[in-house]
């Protein structure tokens, strides 16, 4: 029935191959339908709404008005979102990789860092945002402990540099990088590292020529996930950011919940721009991953 036998089917008896195929298809179907509906449907309907093909009332007509209506805000939001996502991704990867290296050394300090970073994993981002606010706002715990008056304390929450937002993302996502990279380092890298040590490589050289290259694929994958997440995440920027300028998700939210009829297509246009940037980020990540020597 199906012309191409898959790698698993070859090893089995021929008559079973096509039946296995149907079983296989039936097994992936429910998951595939749900993911496909949400991804393809979500992107497709966002595009359709943004170009005026699914109006809430009135006739459907192709138009790019939704993209032009908030042109300036869209551009500022894009720049801001890119800056926040880039800063959070870079910082998370640096801190997370450092934590992973400390964790895989397997001493008591490593176990402490492993336990505390694992503690961070189940904290929802919204809760993270609330607690970062309680920590570094001008009446937060740190200015209290340091005895700095609110007027002298920099505007970290709601300030011009989005420090609290980037810090929250970095806090949560560095734990994620540490978890993923430490998993890889513990299983694969230890032996190479040992061999290099026995061959006389210094610590710095082992770090630079063995540990970091072997951790690279995992770091790239987590960096892409973090970048896409921070680019499209709403609640942290909404809670810890300032009212203007708005990052893309916050802008989309405001437009989506606004009462004017034209604002739904405009929100969809912001969503489409965000999706495009995410897809480009994923493509760049895949290209980088293919260039690492470990890629299979």
């Amino acid at each position: 029935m199906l012309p191409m036998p898959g790698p698993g089917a070859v090893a089995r008896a021929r008559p079973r191959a096509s039946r296995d195929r149907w079983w296989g298809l039936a097994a992936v179907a429910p998951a595939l339908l749900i993911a496909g509906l949400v991804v393809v449907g979500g992107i497709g309907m966002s595009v359709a709404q943004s170009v005026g093909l699914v109006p809430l009332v009135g006739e459907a007509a192709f138009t790019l008005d939704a993209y032009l209506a908030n042109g300036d805000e869209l551009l500022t939001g894009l720049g801001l979102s890119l800056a926040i996502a880039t800063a959070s991704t870079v910082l998370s990867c640096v801190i997370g990789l450092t934590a992973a290296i400390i964790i895989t050394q397997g001493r008591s300090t490593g176990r402490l860092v492993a336990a505390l970073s694992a503690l961070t994993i189940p904290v929802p981002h919204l809760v993270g945002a609330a607690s970062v606010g309680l920590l570094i706002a001008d009446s937060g715990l740190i200015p209290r402990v340091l005895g700095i008056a609110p007027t002298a304390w920099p505007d970290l929450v709601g300030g011009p540099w989005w420090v609290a937002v980037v810090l929250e993302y970095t806090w949560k996502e560095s734990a994620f990088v540490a978890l993923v990279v430490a998993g890889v380092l513990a299983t694969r890298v230890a032996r190479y590292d040992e061999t290099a040590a026995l061959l006389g490589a210094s610590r710095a050289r082992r770090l630079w020529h063995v540990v970091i290259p072997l951790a690279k694929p995992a770091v790239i994958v987590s960096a892409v996930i973090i970048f896409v997440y921070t680019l499209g995440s709403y609640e942290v920027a909404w809670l810890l950011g300032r009212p203007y300028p708005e990052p893309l998700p916050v802008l989309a939210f405001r437009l989506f919940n606004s009462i004017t009829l034209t604002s739904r297509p405009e929100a969809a246009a912001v969503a489409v721009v965000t999706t495009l940037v995410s897809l480009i980020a994923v493509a760049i990540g895949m290209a980088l991953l293919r260039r690492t020597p470990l890629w299979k």
Partner: protein
Amino acid sequence: MAMMIPYGQRITPDTRETRSRGLMRPRPLGRVVRVVLASLLALWFALPLVPLLVWSVANRWSFPAVLPTEWGLDGLMTALEQGAAPAFGRSIVLALAVAAIATPLGALAARALTLGRVPAPRLVSGILLAPLALPAFVAVMGLTIVLLRARVPAALAVLLLLVAAALPYTVYTMRVAYAAHDLAFEEEARTLGASRWHVLWRVHLPLVAPGLARAAFLAFLVGWSDYVVTVLVGGGTLVTLPLLVGSYAAGVGNDAIVAVLSLSAIIPPLLLLLALGRFGRRYPAARFAGPTPSRSPKGSP
């Protein structure tokens, strides 16, 4: 390592000589750097949770004071008055439902993909992982209009979108689990006369149980911590714990309530994580980041 050297030929390390050898060189500086880095990292990961703990038992904590000026459980009382308990229940039900749906679906898909029984496997796994690459609010904004017109109840729509968001995690986790899974055990049981159901319950599921637990935990987290989907699709009708946290955190002067709600949003997944840690130990192959036994830290002869 150096245990290969026969006893007679062993040399007592001489300080002048060991200084030139990579493994035996004493490194006080390296140790100091490591301890300092580890302490900074520990502080980094733990510090943001400290104000939550203190605020949750503070009735009043006016500004310059380093510790609360009045201790007490007013935050907890107000949170309970404001419907924290039913919101907590709704969050648990939602997260469990997401886990209950996404885990078996992910496991089924992962098994078929690992066994190579799926046509166009790269495309299929690409679509299954795609929700990771798509910002949640995009999917929601696109689909709300469709789901509304199809008259899908809000709670069901939230569930559908969250299951899609959880699928990448369950599929990936289960692919890792099935990659390490040996089909020969199942075939052996079949040869010995076990029925298909018997093999499933007694051989297959027990073998992949740690993977299933990990996948279910991740799916639970997706449902438990979601804010965007519940707010946009539920439109305020489905009040979960994150929604309460969001509405109080956006206001001013609710710090104690926010802290209590936040802690109650951390504790259930944390307990699950601890349970998972204990459960996962039965599965030696994929244990997380434990100290590797072959690395003796002291480099002793």
